[in-house]
C-alpha cells in the first residue's frame, strides 16, 4: 500500500542557494507578534494568453438520443486576465497592485472574543482585503459617491465631482420636506399620532376584525351543507342555483319543504345569507378605517399611511422628533461621505488605480430546434476594480465549517458582450454589449454564530450551502447588527455606449438581508 501511495507523489528538485542564517536579537523578536500575515501582490499580471482552457462537466438539459444524460456543453475559456487598470480589456500588459505595504491583505487567526457575534470559546481564521479610511480610497464611500454621480469620473461629460452632491442633496431635501410636512400636519405631535392610532385600532378595528373572522368561518360549513344537499337532490341545477319553475313540477310540489330539492333550496338561502353577513362585516371594517376620525377630522386610514411614511423616514417615533434612525438620517450620513469624496476629487486628488479583470467564454450548445450545435459567447470585462473592505471568516462549530463573508466589489465599468468573432467591428460589438458604469456590489453572507454560512456535503454526495439560525431569541441582534447587501449601478446601457437613447437608467438594490437561504446541488 505504501508503494501505491508513493506512486501518487511527485518529486521536486530545486536548486538551493544557501543564505546565512542570522540570529534575531531581543529587540527584533519583541516586534514580531505573529498576529497576522500581510500579503501583497506587486506589479501583478496574470493572463492566460494563448493557453486553451476547457471547462468540462456541464451538461445541457436537452436529451441525448433517448439516454437520460444531457449533452455535454463545451465551455472554452479563451480569455482570462487580471492586471492593472488601463489594460484596454487585457490587450496591453499593465502591472496591477493587489494590496500595498501600508494596506496589505491580511491572513490572521483571531479569538472569537474579537467579534460580538462569535463565541469566546473558539478561534477563527480571517482573510481580509486592504482597508482604507480616506474617503476617496475607501471603496464603500467612493461607490456611494459614484452611484449618485452616475457617470464615470474623468470620461467626457463627467468632470464635475459635485454633481453627485447636488443629486444626494436633492434626495435629502425631498425626504426632509416630506418629514417636515408630516410633522407640520400633526403639529409636531407624532407621539400622539401613534397613541391615537393604537387606541383607535384597539377600540374599533380589532373587535370588528374578530367579527369578520367569525363570519368568514361560517361560510365554509354552509357551503358544505349546501353541496351535500345538492348531491342528494340529484344535481339537477348548477351548484348555488335554486330549483325553480318547471324543475319543481306541478304547482311547485317537487320543491316542497319535505323534498330533497326543497331542502337544497333552503341551504342555498342559508349559504347566501352567510356570504351576505360576511360582506356586511367587511364593509363595516372598511367604514371604520374611513370614518374613525381624530379630533382634527383625520380618518384612521390616512393617519396609518402617514404614520408608516413617518416611521420609514425617521425610524422611531419619540417626543423630541429626533428622527435619528430613519431614511433621512441614513441619507444625511451618505451625504457626508459623498461630499468628502467630491471635495477630494474637486481638489484634483486621484484615487489609486484598480485592477482590470476579464474573461471570455465560448459555449458550444446543442440546439434541439436546429438539430445541430451552435456557439454562444460571453465576454466579461471589468475595469478599475477595487475590493477593499472585503473579508472571509472561517471557523468550526460542532464539526461543521462555518463562515461569514463580505465581498465589496466596485468596478468603474463592467461590460458583458455576447457576440463572438461575427462582430468584427466596434459598432457591431457595442450593439451586443451590456454596459454598466459604476458597478458596486457589497454582498454580505452570514452574521457570526447568529446566522453562520454553512458549507457541507450531504450523505448522498451533494453540495449544500445554508444560511439559517435567525429565530425568536436572536432576531433583534440580527436586524440591528447584521451587515446588509447592496447593489448599485450608476448607469446601465444596452448597445452603443454613446447613444443616450440606449440608457436604461440606474439600478439600486438597497439594504438586502437574507433571513434564510439553502442551496443544494442535485445530480441530474
Amino acid at each position, binding site marked *: 500500500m505504501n*508503494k*501505491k501511495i508513493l506512486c*501518487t*507523489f*511527485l*518529486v*521536486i*528538485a*530545486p*536548486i538551493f*542557494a544557501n*543564505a546565512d542564517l*542570522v540570529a534575531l536579537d531581543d529587540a527584533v523578536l519583541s516586534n*514580531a*507578534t505573529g*498576529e*497576522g*500575515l*500581510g*500579503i*501583497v*501582490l*506587486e*506589479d501583478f*499580471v*496574470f*493572463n*492566460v*494568453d*494563448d*493557453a*486553451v*482552457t*476547457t*471547462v*468540462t*462537466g456541464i451538461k445541457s438539459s436537452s436529451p441525448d438520443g433517448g439516454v437520460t444524460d444531457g449533452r455535454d456543453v463545451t465551455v472554452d475559456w479563451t480569455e482570462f486576465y487580471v492586471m492593472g487598470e488601463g489594460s484596454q480589456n487585457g490587450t496591453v500588459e499593465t*502591472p496591477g497592485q493587489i494590496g*500595498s*505595504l*501600508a494596506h*496589505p491583505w*491580511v491572513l490572521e487567526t483571531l479569538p472569537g472574543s474579537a467579534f460580538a457575534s462569535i463565541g469566546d470559546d473558539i478561534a477563527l481564521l480571517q482573510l481580509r482585503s486592504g482597508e*482604507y479610511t480616506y474617503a476617496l480610497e475607501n471603496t464603500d464611500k467612493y461607490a456611494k459617491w459614484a452611484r449618485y454621480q452616475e457617470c464615470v469620473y474623468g470620461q467626457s461629460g463627467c468632470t464635475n465631482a459635485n454633481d453627485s452632491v447636488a443629486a444626494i442633496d436633492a434626495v435629502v431635501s425631498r425626504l426632509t420636506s416630506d418629514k417636515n410636512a408630516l410633522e407640520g400636519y400633526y403639529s409636531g405631535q407624532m407621539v400622539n399620532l401613534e397613541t391615537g392610532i393604537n387606541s383607535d385600532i384597539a377600540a374599533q378595528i380589532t373587535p370588528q376584525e374578530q367579527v369578520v373572522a367569525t363570519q368568514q368561518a361560517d361560510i365554509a360549513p354552509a357551503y358544505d351543507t349546501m353541496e351535500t344537499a345538492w348531491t342528494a337532490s340529484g344535481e339537477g341545477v348548477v351548484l348555488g342555483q335554486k330549483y325553480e319553475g318547471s324543475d319543481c313540477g306541478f304547482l311547485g310540489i317537487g320543491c316542497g319543504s319535505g323534498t330533497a330539492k326543497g331542502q337544497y333550496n333552503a341551504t342555498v338561502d342559508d349559504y347566501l345569507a352567510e356570504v351576505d353577513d360576511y360582506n356586511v362585516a367587511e364593509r363595516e371594517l372598511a367604514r371604520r378605517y374611513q370614518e374613525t376620525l381624530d379630533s382634527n377630522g383625520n380618518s384612521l386610514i390616512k393617519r396609518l399611511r402617514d404614520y408608516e411614511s413617518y416611521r420609514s423616514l425617521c425610524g422611531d417615533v419619540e417626543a423630541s422628533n429626533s428622527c435619528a434612525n430613519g431614511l433621512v438620517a441614513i441619507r444625511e450620513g451618505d451625504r457626508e461621505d459623498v461630499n468628502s469624496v467630491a471635495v*477630494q476629487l474637486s481638489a*484634483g*486628488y*486621484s484615487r*489609486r488605480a484598480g485592477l482590470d479583470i476579464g474573461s471570455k467564454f465560448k459555449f458550444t450548445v446543442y440546439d434541439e430546434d436546429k438539430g445541430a450545435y451552435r456557439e454562444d459567447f460571453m465576454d466579461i470585462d471589468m475595469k478599475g476594480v477595487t475590493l477593499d473592505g472585503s473579508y472571509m471568516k472561517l471557523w468550526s462549530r460542532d464539526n*461543521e465549517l462555518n463562515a461569514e463573508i463580505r465581498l465589496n466589489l466596485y468596478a468603474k465599468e463592467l461590460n458583458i458582450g455576447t457576440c463572438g468573432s461575427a462582430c468584427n467591428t466596434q459598432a457591431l460589438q457595442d450593439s451586443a454589449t451590456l454596459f454598466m458604469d459604476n458597478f458596486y456590489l457589497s454582498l454580505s453572507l452570514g452574521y457570526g454564530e447568529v446566522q453562520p454560512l454553512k458549507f*457541507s*456535503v*450531504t*450523505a*448522498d*454526495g*451533494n*453540495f449544500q450551502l445554508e444560511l439559517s439560525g435567525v429565530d425568536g431569541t436572536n432576531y433583534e441582534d440580527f436586524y440591528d447588527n447584521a451587515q446588509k447587501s447592496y447593489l448599485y449601478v450608476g448607469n446601465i446601457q444596452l448597445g452603443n455606449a454613446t447613444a443616450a437613447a440606449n440608457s436604461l437608467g440606474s439600478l439600486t438594490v438597497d439594504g438586502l438581508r437574507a433571513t434564510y437561504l439553502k442551496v443544494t*446541488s442535485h*445530480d441530474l
Partner: protein
Amino acid sequence: MTIRKITALLGLMSSVSAFAELAPMEEAEMESVTGQGGVYLSGELAFNKEGGPLWGATSGQFDEFGTEKQVRNCGTVSEPGECGIRIAAQLDQGGWYVLDDLSGGFSFEGLTLRTSFRETALDYDVRDASGNPVVEAFNKEVVEIGLPKTVSLNNFKFTLAVANSGEWKPNGTVLADGNTFQQTNLFGIQMNGDITLKGNLLLFPVN
C-alpha cells in the same frame, strides 16, 4: 516493484540548472554580501502521466502485485484515458470535498524566493499638501516571491467534486452506511499552453 516501473508511474521531474563561471571574490566584495541571496527555482511537474496504481482505464490491467486494477475511465468510451490523482477531504461529519482526476503537467522557470528590506511604504490614508499619498517609514524585512513570468501547462486538468465517500467506487457500490456511492462533479478544468504570471508576492507579519 522495479525502478523502471516506479519511473513509469511517477511524474517526471527535471530541474534546469544554469552553470555560470565561478570566480574568486575580493575581500571588499565579500564584506558587502549580506547573505540575502535567495532561491531561484525552475521546474517541471507532472502528475500521473502514465496512470496510477489503483485504476486502469480499460479492464485487464494489473498492479505490481498482479491484482487486477479497478476499471475507471476518465476519457471517453472510444478513447479511454487514465485517471489522475484524487484528493478528498472531509471538513464536517457529512460528505467529502474532492479534487479529482488531477493530472498533466506544468513547468516554469525563474520563480525566485528571497527576503528584501523595504524602507518606505505609500500610505493612501494620509495626503500631503498637493494631495499625493505620503511616503512613510516601513523598515521591515519582507519575504519576496518573484513569480516566474511564464508557466507552461501541458494537458493540466482537474475536477472539483463533492462525494459521499473519500475513496472512489464504481457506480452503484453500496457504502458501509447503506448509501450508494454518489459523486457530484461541480466542474472540471483542462489547460494547455503558456500563461503569463508576473509580479512579486510579498509576505510579512502585521500587527
